[in-house]
């Protein structure tokens, strides 16, 4: 099997399964999704050695090739994102199968979730669109995949028709659409200047003209809005907190990375000649502000899901530090650190949301006060949450630690003491709210009455959390893969 065929498979399998799932009944659709997930996991894992061997691969869909047709571009970064999508996807699918299934004992009080049948085709479309996003080489095609991801995500947020979720979904919709419009305007300007929307060709032809600079600004702002960078993060906490738990895991773990992936592609591959130190500094400062603000807000929350959602706002801030740290000799270091961090975060945040979901199911609410003493009843899920927290805090040997360590090293080498301090501060703040949540559950005075939770829903988050924690040990292959097609050291032009 070639790398190109694996990539095509990763797009076609979920789409085809979505079509079939639409027609099937819910149980069969769930089984089909699990099977499709398994196939995708196999495809993405076999992609890795192929890419390591061949380097970055270009594939002309419909045979025409850029600039006339659409090319797929599969490099190390794509492969890493595909792998994390597959693994988190499979895990979430298994969890969702239990989440949406009605309990076998109706007397135990587990009511079926209405509209569960719509989950499977929507989730498969989301999954396929994410895969398509990570391998596309054409900016307009990326716009369409991004829209597919957003719309499927919106439909999933509003799936259970709860008021808070609907309002949150609408807020997200308007924010995301404004972001898409800005991005599309950028494409218009770029096509008008260079007669192509293929990002590799653009990277070769881009010059520092007025229209190009405007396009860069518009696209980065639009995508930053979609990635919920402070201060454009207002839509994220309600949307991720009020969605059903498996959906929250996917949104925070994967969807956010999609638009961020696009910013990386634009910044390092299309606009390296155009971006300035000032722009990089601005993004990094906003990232630092996001870390502090997100963590402080997370501390204030009484609802666990909101706390985890604000934690996402903070962790997104870490991702944006790369735009100032990946310059000169620290490029590789910052690049590796950021992607490693994103990779670990997908696992950790997924585990966090899934375990919070299981615990909320047990108690009937996600408010911290109702969780006192829960550890005595649901030790597995609490342990999973704690373990996920370990990676979020950045403690060794977790993947989060590796990511933060690399970023810290890059910051120190670059002389950015402020950023280094913020990175450490973020870790401290995260540990405060994680500890507070976990210690509350150990309170033995108030042991709550719990409802039965399906076994899968307890153990799956633990598996994911273990992945996040043990990632630190297995980063060798990850870093090797990331070097394939990694951007050359960026030298930012000093406007002065």
């Amino acid at each position: 099997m070639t790398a190109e065929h694996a990539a095509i498979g990763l797009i076609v399998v979920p789409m085809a399964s979505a079509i079939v799932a639409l027609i099937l009944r819910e149980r069969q659709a769930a089984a089909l999704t699990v099977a499709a997930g398994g196939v995708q996991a196999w495809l993405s894992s076999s992609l890795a050695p192929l890419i390591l061997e061949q380097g970055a691969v270009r594939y002309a869909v419909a045979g025409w090739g850029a600039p006339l047709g659409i090319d797929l571009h599969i490099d190390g970064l794509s492969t890493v994102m595909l792998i994390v999508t597959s693994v988190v996807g499979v895990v979430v699918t298994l969890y969702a199968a239990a989440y949406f299934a009605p309990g076998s004992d109706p007397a135990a009080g587990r009511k079926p979730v209405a509209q569960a049948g719509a989950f499977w085709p929507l989730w498969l479309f989301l999954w396929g669109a994410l895969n398509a996003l990570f391998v596309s080489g054409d900016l307009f095609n990326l716009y369409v995949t991004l829209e597919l991801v957003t719309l499927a995500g919106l439909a999933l947020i509003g799936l259970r028709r709860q008021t808070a979720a609907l309002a949150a979904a609408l807020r997200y919709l308007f924010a995301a659409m404004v972001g898409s419009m800005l991005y599309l305007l950028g494409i218009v300007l770029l096509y008008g200047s260079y007669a192509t929307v293929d990002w590799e060709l653009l990277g070769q032809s881009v010059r520092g003209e007025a229209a190009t600079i405007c396009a860069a600004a518009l696209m980065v702002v639009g995508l930053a809005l979609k990635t919920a960078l402070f201060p454009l993060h207002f839509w994220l906490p309600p949307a991720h907190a009020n969605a059903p738990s498996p959906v929250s895991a996917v949104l925070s773990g994967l969807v956010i990375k999609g638009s961020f992936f696009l910013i990386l592609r634009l910044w390092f591959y299309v606009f390296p000649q155009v971006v300035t130190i000032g722009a990089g500094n601005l993004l990094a400062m906003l990232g630092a502000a996001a870390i502090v603000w997100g963590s402080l807000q997370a501390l204030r929350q009484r609802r666990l899901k909101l706390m985890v959602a604000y934690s996402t706002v903070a962790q997104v801030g870490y991702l944006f530090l790369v735009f100032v740290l990946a310059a000169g000799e620290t490029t590789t270091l910052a690049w590796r650190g950021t992607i490693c961090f994103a990779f670990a975060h997908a696992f950790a945040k997924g585990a966090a949301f899934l375990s919070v979901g299981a615990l909320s199911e047990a108690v009937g609410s996600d408010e911290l006060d109702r969780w006192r003493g829960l550890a005595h009843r649901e030790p597995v899920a609490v342990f999973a949450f704690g373990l996920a927290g370990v990676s979020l805090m950045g403690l060794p040997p977790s993947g989060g630690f590796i990511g933060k360590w690399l970023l810290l090293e890059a910051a120190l080498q670059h002389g950015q003491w402020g950023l280094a301090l913020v990175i450490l501060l973020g870790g401290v703040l995260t540990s405060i709210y994680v500890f507070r949540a976990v210690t509350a559950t150990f309170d033995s005075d108030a042991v709550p009455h719990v409802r039965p939770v399906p076994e899968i829903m307890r153990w799956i988050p633990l598996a994911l959390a273990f992945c996040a924690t043990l990632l630190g040990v297995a980063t060798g292959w990850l870093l090797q893969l990331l070097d394939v097609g990694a951007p050359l050291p960026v030298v930012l032009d000093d406007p002065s």
Partner: protein
Amino acid sequence: MLTHGDLFALCGAVLFGIGLFGILACRHLVRKVIALNLTSTSVFLIMIALSIRTPDGSPDFVPHAMVLTGIVVSLSATALALSLIRRLHRETGQWELPDVLPFDSTRRTPAGAAGYSVVDEESRVQRSADGEATDDR
């Protein structure tokens, strides 16, 4: 020297501004959706206005295909937005998003937790009659 294409492109830019203002400033959700459509149409207008700059006069068709795709995507987004709005109205009787960002977990009712200060009694009764799962998972 302003060409015809430039005129339409600038018109598109102005429409983009109007539409963006509408999305941010209008309170009624349906009006926001109209503004969203206005915005996307303006971007398409700019794209096509730029496509007639060919020296021999016949247009460049690639932007046409992109805009056609864009029109369909924008329709899908509109339809999805209207579905969400309809459902929100059925649940709360409101056509606007609340001012207060919905983080206030002390409000006990579902509508209250979403930030709506007016609890529509009818819709609450209807919802519990639907028998949907109301726990927070």
